[in-house]
């Protein structure tokens, strides 16, 4: 079972490259929001998996929880920017 968790964690961390790709490449800012949001979700799972690898899940759950909540705040704040400032591109060159 340890091996399963271990390999799943590796796979999951590799999978995180894809949302990261979306976040890095864009093309719009909103794609980046989406990518960051997805990274957050996957990281939450990965955190708990690491907890299993250390055999002390109870220590990691709090972090995962905080993580999930605060990820939300960050993305919300960023999208609030567009709620109040019009224009995706007009401020940019």
């Amino acid at each position: 079972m340890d091996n399963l968790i271990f390999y799943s964690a590796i796979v999951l961390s590799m999978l995180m490259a894809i949302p990261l790709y979306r976040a890095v490449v864009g093309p719009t800012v909103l794609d980046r929001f989406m990518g960051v949001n997805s990274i957050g979700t996957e990281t939450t799972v990965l955190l708990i998996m690491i907890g299993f690898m250390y055999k002390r899940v109870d220590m990691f759950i709090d972090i995962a929880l905080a993580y999930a909540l605060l990820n939300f705040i960050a993305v919300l704040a960023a999208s609030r920017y567009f709620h109040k400032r019009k224009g995706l591109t007009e401020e940019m060159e």
Partner: protein
Amino acid sequence: MIIYIAGVLIIAGLFFFLVGSIGMIRLPDFYSRLHSAGIIDTMGLLLSMSGLALLILNEFNLGNFLSAIKIILIIVFIFLTSPTATHAIVDAGIRAGLKPWEKKQ
């Protein structure tokens, strides 16, 4: 027995993560990509987290039980926040004037 169910759930969760990620790359515009990002937030998270929760319960005691409940709570929270965040992002996109991709007739 529980272990195997948990293992299957985790692998299924990973599979959905993969699916969502591929969708995020392949779909043509931001709005449709959000749909596939939704898979990550819902199915992927749900399955893998419940797998992990089951895995904890494999060795049953009070502490582990509470840990499992906390994992379920994480799911609940993410099910609350994820659609809100998605909604906020979409709203931002609409307000920012990002035109949805439309199929060329």
